[in-house]
């Protein structure tokens, strides 16, 4: 969004194809979901308007509330591990030369593996009998993610950290690389220690990138489905049933349209709120110009 | 060929009048001179059609341009930040207007024209290179070559040398002088540097806050500015302006009282006015019947061929004295200044119009 743009509503013609494509793939489905959430459907021609009845039941359904808390806990744990670890890795990465390119490629490998294959990889890797991870774990304590809920939870958590920490590291790394060399020179002239270089030079410059990493990771982990589904199928019991897994069982599994519709809308609404915060951060002028933008508007 | 702007006006948002122009630009080079934000670029964007005026008409040889789309106006535009097509070679850059033009030229004609223009701007050795591989000066030459390749009726140059270092500016100015002196299209060259308008000594239009406030040769405007704004626009370093009083035909300023040989009648009834004096009319050695004022040196700026001494007078007003040669000085020392009262300008405090100026010493060259 750069300054000095021409005002012209003719631009709508350029945007129409996107609006059409996204409308077909998003608006129509959302309308049907809304439709389901307010009616009790026995058969295609026999519907009964029930108003917010499904929404009330979803809000009070223990299974859904448990899944919500579980997913929230999962997201918070994921953030508390991945953000600091990502920063640590980013700071250790080589900054220039071929080593930097090699580091970027190796670090990005987990990000390009299909999510289900991540699940499959960890499913094999964490099995006690045929997986190296499972085998080593069993040397220290009896570990079996298929029937022990805490083991399952730990495996899913470790898998997500393994899968997404590289993204945090890459985001922080791109933030670090944009810091002009003069800042480091000035810091060494001032005799600053490694820690104060991080705290006073690097951290202030990483505010925006860290916000992006935080929100991106929170939303993605809050919508996670494939990896835990492949490894534990949500089990044992419902110990690793995340919101998306529960929603897909209610919707496709039980075909309970009303609950699934209401549940989907509430879920979508939560993500909308988070997306708005993310939008403001994303379009924040990279030169921390937000204040400038506001002041300019006042003139 | 004449390009005429008839009471072209532009409002920003709702009320504030940004531009109100009446001007006639003839074939050959014309200088549009004015401080930054005077509206020079906006005027050019209106001529090129990139912006539409709220009212008024822009005609080229009588033909109203507003009907003609930007693409089909025979206009070339050179930006201040040397914009070229980065993915094209220098050759393709210069050739692109010819290739997209309606009246198709043959491949060989295009090739000859490009080589001819490249030769003119010393770009022949770089024709196959990408613009990004060239220096700033060369990139601007590519932009100028592209503007010339199509022989358009109007050529607009928006402060083309502003981003170049000053030695390169001198060199390119010389080249532009040769290229445009006998051009048969209307060339409008905008600049904020008075020295450039003096250098080209072609019809000059002084702009200030969206209006053309004076036109004529740069020298005339320099010697007989119609207002304080014209005076400021054409003098570099800017003309010194001091508040002065006038009682029973003697003038006083910053603690000095002096007689002015003959007080031009316009000045007679102005009790308070702004006195203008060019930096090079101030001297540090005594000259005959000189007025003397003292102050403290803030800084002596040495540019090599001349030195600008910034002085703060007792009346807390600042003054710049221009000396020839290199005279470094330490800030803080006492400094006496002499000037010949015949060399002063006078401006009305309210209307900012000129009340008096030094007699014309040089017959019109």
């Amino acid at each position: 969004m750069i300054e000095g743009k021409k005002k012209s509503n003719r631009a709508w013609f350029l945007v129409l194809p996107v609006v059409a494509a996204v409308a077909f793939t998003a608006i129509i489905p959302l309308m049907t979901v809304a439709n389901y959430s307010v009616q009790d459907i026995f058969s295609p021609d026999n519907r009964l308007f029930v108003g917010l009845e499904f929404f009330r039941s979803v809000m009070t359904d223990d299974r859904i509330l448990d899944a919500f808390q579980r997913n929230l806990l999962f997201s918070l744990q994921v953030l508390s591990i991945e953000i600091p670890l990502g920063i640590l890795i980013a700071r250790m990465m080589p900054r220039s030369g071929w080593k930097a390119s090699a580091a970027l490629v190796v670090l990005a490998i987990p990000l390009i593996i299909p999510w289900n294959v991540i699940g499959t990889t960890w499913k094999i890797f964490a099995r006690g009998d045929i997986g190296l991870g499972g085998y080593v774990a069993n040397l220290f304590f009896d570990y079996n993610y298929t029937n022990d809920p805490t083991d399952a939870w730990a495996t899913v958590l470790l898998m997500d950290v393994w899968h997404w920490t590289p993204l945090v590291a890459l985001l922080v790394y791109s933030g670090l690389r944009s810091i002009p060399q003069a800042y480091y020179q000035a810091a060494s002239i001032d005799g600053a220690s490694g820690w104060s270089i991080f705290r006073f030079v690097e951290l202030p410059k990483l505010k925006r990138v860290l916000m992006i990493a935080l929100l991106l990771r929170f939303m993605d982990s809050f919508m996670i489905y494939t990896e835990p589904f492949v490894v534990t199928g949500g089990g044992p019991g419902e110990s690793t049933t995340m919101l998306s897994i529960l929603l897909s069982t209610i919707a496709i599994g039980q075909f309970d349209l009303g609950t699934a519709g209401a549940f989907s809308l509430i879920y979508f609404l939560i993500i909308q709120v988070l997306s708005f915060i993310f939008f403001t951060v994303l379009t924040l002028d990279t030169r921390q110009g937000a204040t400038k933008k506001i002041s300019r508007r006042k003139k | 060929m004449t390009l005429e702007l008839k009471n072209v006006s532009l409002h920003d948002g709702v009320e504030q009048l940004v531009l109100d122009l009446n001007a006639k630009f003839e074939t050959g080079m014309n200088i549009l001179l004015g401080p930054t934000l005077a509206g020079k670029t906006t005027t050019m964007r209106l001529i090129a059609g990139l912006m539409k005026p709220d009212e008024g008409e822009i005609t080229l040889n009588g033909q109203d341009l507003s009907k003609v789309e930007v693409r089909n106006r025979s206009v070339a535009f050179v930006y201040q930040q040397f914009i070229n097509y980065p993915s094209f070679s220098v050759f393709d850059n210069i050739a692109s207007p010819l290739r997209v033009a309606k009246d198709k030229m043959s491949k060989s004609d295009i090739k000859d024209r490009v080589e001819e223009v490249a030769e003119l701007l010393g770009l022949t050795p770089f024709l196959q290179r990408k613009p990004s591989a060239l220096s700033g000066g060369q990139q601007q030459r590519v932009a100028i070559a592209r503007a010339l390749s199509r022989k358009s009726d109007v050529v607009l140059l928006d402060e083309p040398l502003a981003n170049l270092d000053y030695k390169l500016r001198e060199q390119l100015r010389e080249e532009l002088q040769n290229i445009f002196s006998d051009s048969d299209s209307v060339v409008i060259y905008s600049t904020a540097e008075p020295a450039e308008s003096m250098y080209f000594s072609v019809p000059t239009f002084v702009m200030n806050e969206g209006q053309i406030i004076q036109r004529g040769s740069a020298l005339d405007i320099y010697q007989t500015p119609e207002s304080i704004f014209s005076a400021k626009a054409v003098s570099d370093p800017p003309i010194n302006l001091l508040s002065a009083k006038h009682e029973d035909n003697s003038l006083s300023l910053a603690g000095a009282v002096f007689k002015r040989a003959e007080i031009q009648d316009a000045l007679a009834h102005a009790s308070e006015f702004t006195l203008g004096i060019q930096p090079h009319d101030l001297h540090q050695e005594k000259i005959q019947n000189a007025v003397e004022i003292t102050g403290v040196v803030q800084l002596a700026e040495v540019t090599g061929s001349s030195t600008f001494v910034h002085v703060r007078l007792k009346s807390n007003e600042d003054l710049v004295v221009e000396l020839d040669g290199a005279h470094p000085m330490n800030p803080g020392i006492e400094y006496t200044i002499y000037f010949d009262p015949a060399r002063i300008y006078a401006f009305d405090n309210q209307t900012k119009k000129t009340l008096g100026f030094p007699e014309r010493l040089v017959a019109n060259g």
Partner: protein
Amino acid sequence: MAEIRLENVAHSYDGGETFALKETSMVWEDGKAYALLGPSGCGKTTLLNIISGLIIPSHGKIFVDGVDITEKPTEERNIAQVFQFPVLYDTMTVRKNLEFPLKNRKVPAEEIQKKVAEIADMLDLTEMLDKRPGKLRSDLQQIVSLGRGLVRDSVAAILFDEPLTVIDQNSKWTLRSRLKKLHLQTEATIVYVTHDQTEALTFADHVLVMKDGELIQAGTSEELYLSPAHEFVGYFIGSPGMNFIPVSSTGSSITHKGETIGTASSELGAGDYNLGVRPEFVFPSDAGFEMEIMRVENRGVYQLLHMEFDGNPLIAKVGESDVYKSGEIKKFSFNPERSFLFQDKRVVSTFEPKTRVSN
């Protein structure tokens, strides 16, 4: 506080094939202000980075007050540096910014307060001490980043790396005068890098003109202007630059296109030379040489006569009151002390124009 001595310092970024900085040896006296002036790519920044410790030179040694600091890291070199843009810790107030270097060096608290107050007063920062630097005007921000260097006692040298680059036009002038005043207040040796000649000539006592990695002349602004030692200095300093006329020497006299025009002040072997004279030192004189005026450029303040001297372009700078017309043939001569003869770009002697008896 420090005399900086360079001994055969040179630097190559590609292991010795090309040299960004050719071998130079020089001494920078304590307390003086030096400017490194030259177009981009002339090696001035490389030299500055060698002094600051960012680059360890591939050849030669550097001594500060006799101590070899060639391979010492930046933090152990007692220097302050101001960069092309204000380098500040935005999360700290101006006061905290100034305290930072002292805190890192474990200086006792009340000593820090005293030093900060003293520097703040010297740089007129006292009222802004509790503001966030990000809010200040860009020239004040540069002053704060400079203050961070000066807070440390007995700073050996202050390095300026084109500090006015991002300063907007009207506050550029105020920052220049403040830096000039500062130079008189502190005794630190100052090294100022710039490509703008006005900045170099205004700021420094000694200006070192560099080109293609080589120091070609060091001197005061008058010396550079009045007696350039290299054709580049003649061209680069002053606007318009020096005229250069190809001439040849017959051992005893100087000829231009076969006609004797004068003699050299020192013995010159036969061969080709360049006669260099600034437009300001070409003056109308009946005993001079005939030149055809091609174009009169009236700058209001003075006039520039674009002339031809037997086929060579020559510019003369004359007062605004004398009247000239293009096409006229007039006689001009050269000021002897200010006309020089150059051989492959280096000055070899001054030139004494022959005064022809006007017939």
